[in-house]
């Protein structure tokens, strides 16, 4: 397909090379921040399926991310599952909750959908907070074990970096392939015009629900990583605030650009860390940063590097000069 977004392997390898060297030269705190960035790329990419491709703004991604984190936390601490074995349940749990609650909301458009997702966000948070026997309530879940791969415990900031990088890379490449598939094309068509989509035999409802499944699944995978990095989770980590941050990261990256989302996640997630010295003024500084970003890069951070696309006038000229 001529205009399909495809992976540029040259650039991907260059970026990976830099990212692989980073932990060997950077101080531990930088690696720690980088770990959060890598974790957050997963729910942000997931959100991209909804915001970028069905044109809907969701404010429940933080909660679904939390569902993934809680599933793996509870299975490992209460039932003694090995962390790796809980990956699939974490993803499936997030998909189940995300789709069951979000599916009916997908019928709504614009602000109504936003309102519904805020409701979903609150429902999940309240359940996490109040189902004390099941989730531990406000106490949260402590001593979540580190992920072990073949007898090696990924329990340091340094070693976790490589796990997070591997998962972020895999999720990026998988998302890229999905967007380049016929489903990606259909979702882009749906976000332009739902009525016209049904007039070319696209099953609009089915594709929107699939987008929601992907969105939730990616959030669940991110939650899995998060739980095994911070090792202690509680309901207040999954309030509306992270949902807003995730949404901002996915919108700040630019329209339908996965790479833009990744760059935006890197900038904004590290900003939340590095702005800590501002104390309670942190969110003001963060807000300023967002405002400036929206003013100077309204089409996303990657709009600094415009893509070349042939303009009709140019082509018509070429055609006549041929004749």
């Amino acid at each position, binding site marked *: 397909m001529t205009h399909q977004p495809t992976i540029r392997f040259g650039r991907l390898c260059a970026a990976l090379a830099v990212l692989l060297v980073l932990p060997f030269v950077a101080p531990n705190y930088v690696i720690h921040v980088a770990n959060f960035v890598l974790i957050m790329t997963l729910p942000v990419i997931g959100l991209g399926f909804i915001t970028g491709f069905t044109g809907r703004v969701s404010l429940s991604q933080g909660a679904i991310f939390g569902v993934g984190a809680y599933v793996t936390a509870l299975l490992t601490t209460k039932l003694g599952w090995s962390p790796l074995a809980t990956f699939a349940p974490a993803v499936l749990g997030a998909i189940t909750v995300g789709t069951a609650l979000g599916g009916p909301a997908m019928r709504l458009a614009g602000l109504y959908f936003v309102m519904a997702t805020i409701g979903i966000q609150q429902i999940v948070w309240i359940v996490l907070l109040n189902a004390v026997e099941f989730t531990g309530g406000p106490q949260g879940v402590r001593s979540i074990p580190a992920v072990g791969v073949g007898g090696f415990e990924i329990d340091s900031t340094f070693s976790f970096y490589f796990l997070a990088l591997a998962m972020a890379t895999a999720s990026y490449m998988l998302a890229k392939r999905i967007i380049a598939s016929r*489903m990606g094309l259909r979702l882009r068509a749906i976000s332009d015009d739902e009525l016209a989509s049904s007039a070319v035999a696209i099953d609009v409802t089915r594709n929107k629900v699939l987008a929601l499944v992907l969105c939730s699944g990616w959030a669940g995978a991110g939650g899995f990583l998060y739980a095994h990095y911070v090792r202690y989770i509680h309901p207040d980590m999954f309030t509306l605030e992270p949902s807003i941050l995730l949404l901002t990261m996915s919108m700040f990256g630019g329209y339908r650009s996965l790479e833009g989302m990744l760059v935006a996640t890197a900038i904004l997630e590290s900003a939340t860390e590095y702005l800590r010295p501002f104390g309670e003024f942190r969110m003001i500084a963060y807000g300023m940063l967002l405002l400036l970003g929206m003013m100077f890069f309204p089409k996303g951070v990657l709009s600094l590097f415009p893509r070349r696309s042939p*303009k009709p006038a140019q082509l018509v000229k070429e055609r006549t000069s041929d004749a």
Partner: protein
Amino acid sequence: MLEVKAVSLSFRGVRALAAVDLQVAKGELLGVIGPNGSGKSTLFNVISGIYRPDSGSLIFEGKSLVGVSPAQIVRNGLVRTFQNKRLFVNLTVHENVMVAALKAEPGSALGDVLGLRRSREALESAESRARECLRIVGLTALADVLTKDLPYGAQNRLEIARALVLEPSLLLLDEPAAGLNPSERTEVVHLIRKIHERGITIALVEHDMRIVTGLCSRIAVLDHGEKIADGAAKEVIDDPKVLEAYFGAELSGAQEVNA
């Protein structure tokens, strides 16, 4: 092929269609005309499943269309275009046709992600059918242009290409020449005739009488949601009832402008 029987539809008490009957026979090129607001587009919207009629029946190739989803109606071979150009503006011209071409192809999105051979072949086949349809409407040179950058005159042809790639047995064209200049109109007339010659049955809503009389052997006339005439083009345009409803209204409108 298509049989519309006593179809009525009201919007909050406003009557849009009143017991409209319409038959389209296989191989026909039928024109549907009528003044503004006479229910032509509403009729197309009912046939294509966007509105559900209050009463009456719609039979397409022996199967009822009432309550069938728009997407399913398209899969059955009844395809439409839109009067107000509903294109996917953030997709390229080629992608607009490609997304429709995938309808008839086997394989799934999962197959695409995994790179299965069956899926790759399906994509290639859709690709070549999309290319072929763009060639028929003369948009090959603009295939990689973003649709929102497309000149207005080319948008009608893209709508037709996108409908054509769905391999319709019956094609509903809703004002395919609206907003075009005379030379573009001639092109579209030529294109519609070409499509009809490929064996596709066509029903056409149009304002421009020269286009309808030039193309269609049979014409149905709607006025205030009722069918007031239906028959051979020559007889219909001489029918005094039609003259009053259609030309009469237009003439008196013209006089008002002159006054």
